[in-house]
């Protein structure tokens, strides 16, 4: 396991780049795969597929609601559609289309959105989706996956391509530290234990997995022994793992680049609440919109760094009975 520095322009792999690459590979392997985008293919990286398979690539223009409906129709006629845009416009704008056309029909549509979360940076609040996990998670039949790095993104996209049914994969704009090598395996409904520990379990998704690992290191130096779990699959949630961690550690911290309401933190709190109640301290944006700025400053201002996670761990441990 290699662990690199925080997101910057120079290091790591953007999950959207990994998506573009693996989608083009899948295109050669499976002729049923079709890709739709809404005038953002150079940003979502579906353009890589579009260049290689122009006949199976559809730029639907700036019209996300229509794109989702068309993707569902294609799936009913036997295709495997991937539909992409920014997270804001792939989940927010067409929410009712996703609920009723895709999920209620159990259409085999893969919604893969990029530019999720605060790490959108300079584009600002209107483009920073901090509610998408919550609104996708609330729909029956929808699965929600948020990969932590480039290599796991590739495995996850491969897994959802061969799986049947609606799924939302949440990807990001900047380069992320590389956490996994090619031995990573994805299983729907399962988390990955990156570090075992006994004092507190940090359950994280996306970029926050890297921050959680950093937090674990600093905490270790202070004599606090934490577990770190990459819960890439937020729905269906790995209930068994959450429960066993609650039993073992007696305290949980969640970390996500998303509102603390309704996302990973919400899911974990719902699970512990009914299975084995323990303190759950949620690291995420505090029910607020984001703003324009550079990524490191935004992570600091919105409380998403390893330091914030470490503080949350200490708070959670203090709350143990």
């Amino acid at each position, binding site marked *: 396991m290699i662990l690199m520095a925080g997101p910057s322009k120079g290091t790591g792999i953007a999950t959207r780049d990994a998506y573009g690459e693996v989608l083009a590979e899948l295109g050669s392997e499976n002729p049923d795969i079709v890709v739709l985008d809404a005038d953002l293919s150079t940003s979502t990286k579906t353009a890589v597929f579009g260049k290689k398979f122009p006949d199976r690539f559809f*730029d639907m223009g700036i*019209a996300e*609601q229509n794109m989702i409906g068309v993707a569902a129709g294609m799936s009913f006629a036997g295709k495997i559609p991937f539909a992409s845009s920014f997270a804001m416009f792939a989940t927010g704008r067409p929410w009712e289309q996703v609920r009723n056309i895709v999920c209620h029909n159990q259409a085999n549509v893969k919604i893969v959105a990029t530019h999720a979360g605060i790490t959108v940076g300079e*584009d600002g609040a209107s483009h920073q989706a901090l509610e998408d996990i919550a609104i996708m998670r609330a729909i029956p039949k929808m699965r929600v996956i948020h990969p932590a790095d480039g290599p796991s993104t590739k495995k996850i996209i491969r897994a959802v391509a061969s799986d049947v049914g609606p799924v939302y994969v949440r990807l990001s704009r900047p380069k992320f530290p590389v956490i996994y090598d090619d031995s990573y395996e994805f299983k729907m409904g399962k988390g990955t234990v990156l570090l075992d520990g006994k004092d507190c379990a940090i359950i994280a998704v996306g970029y926050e997995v890297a921050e959680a690992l950093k937090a674990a290191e600093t905490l270790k130096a202070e004599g606090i022994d934490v577990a770190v779990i990459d819960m890439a699959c937020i729905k269906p949630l790995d209930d068994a793992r959450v429960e066993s961690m609650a039993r073992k550690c007696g305290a949980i911290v969640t970390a996500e680049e998303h509102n603390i309401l309704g996302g990973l933190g919400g899911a974990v709190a719902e699970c512990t609440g009914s299975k084995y109640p323990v303190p759950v301290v949620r690291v995420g944006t505090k029910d607020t919109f984001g703003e*324009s*700025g550079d990524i490191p400053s935004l992570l600091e201002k919105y409380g998403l760094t390893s330091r914030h996670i470490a503080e949350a761990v200490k708070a959670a441990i203090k709350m143990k009975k």
Partner: protein
Amino acid sequence: MAAYALTSDKQLLADKCLLHRRHIVKMVHCASSGHMGGSLSAVELATTLYYSFLKGDPANPKWDGRDYVVWSKGHASPLAYSILADLGYFPKAELATFRKLGTRLQGHVDRLKVPGIDASTGPLGQGISIALGMALATRLDKTPNHVWAITGDGEHQEGQMWEAIMAAGFHKTDNLTVILDYNKKQLSGPVENIVDIAPIADKYRAFNWNVIEINGHDIVQIIDAYKKALAFKGKPTVVIADTIKGKGVPIFEQEISGFHGAPPCDADYEKAMAGLGPAKWPDFF
């Protein structure tokens, strides 16, 4: 409350256009992000609107006698900010803070942060609905405020645009004018290669709108079109303005998407600024 003074001095307007073009390129270069192409194409359209037609009061941006502007293409924020700074809505030096942490000048225009902005936008396709709401409300109040919406061609692909266009045609809101910056390009390239919106004038006519077609870089034609839009009774007006994305900087004009959303490299920046040449006033930052 007093509205700021208007002008129809064509040379002055042209000089202001050059100043705003310089600021647009400078702001995006300075922020290392932002949208130049679709700001540059709308410079004459927006400059003429703000300096020759709009009723507004920088000392009291919420003055209820003002005309409303909805920047439906909210990514053209550099242009909006340059104009509002020049008109005195906020300090000129603030342009240097565009897109930086803590700034009021967000990547996409925000009505809660920037004096002179009437609607927060950025997510495309929503501006005509907002403008229609303003137009219906001011009509209810029998006040003379006019509502303007500045739109892009690509965003006309959104379904909500046509819901709003249909509703405005039905409601005959002649106090609403849509400016269509018809620069033929969107983010990924030419509109005609993605999902073409042509014949756009016929579409608006079929939705019961008054249609005026002009060259969107010709100030005389723009003034004439806005006058006609204000005078027209019984239907909303759309001014379909033929424009060039990236206008004023040849390397931007030639790029496939009209230099949509990327910052210029230092060399392109120097070239662009040299090509534009100095404005009548020094740059604000």
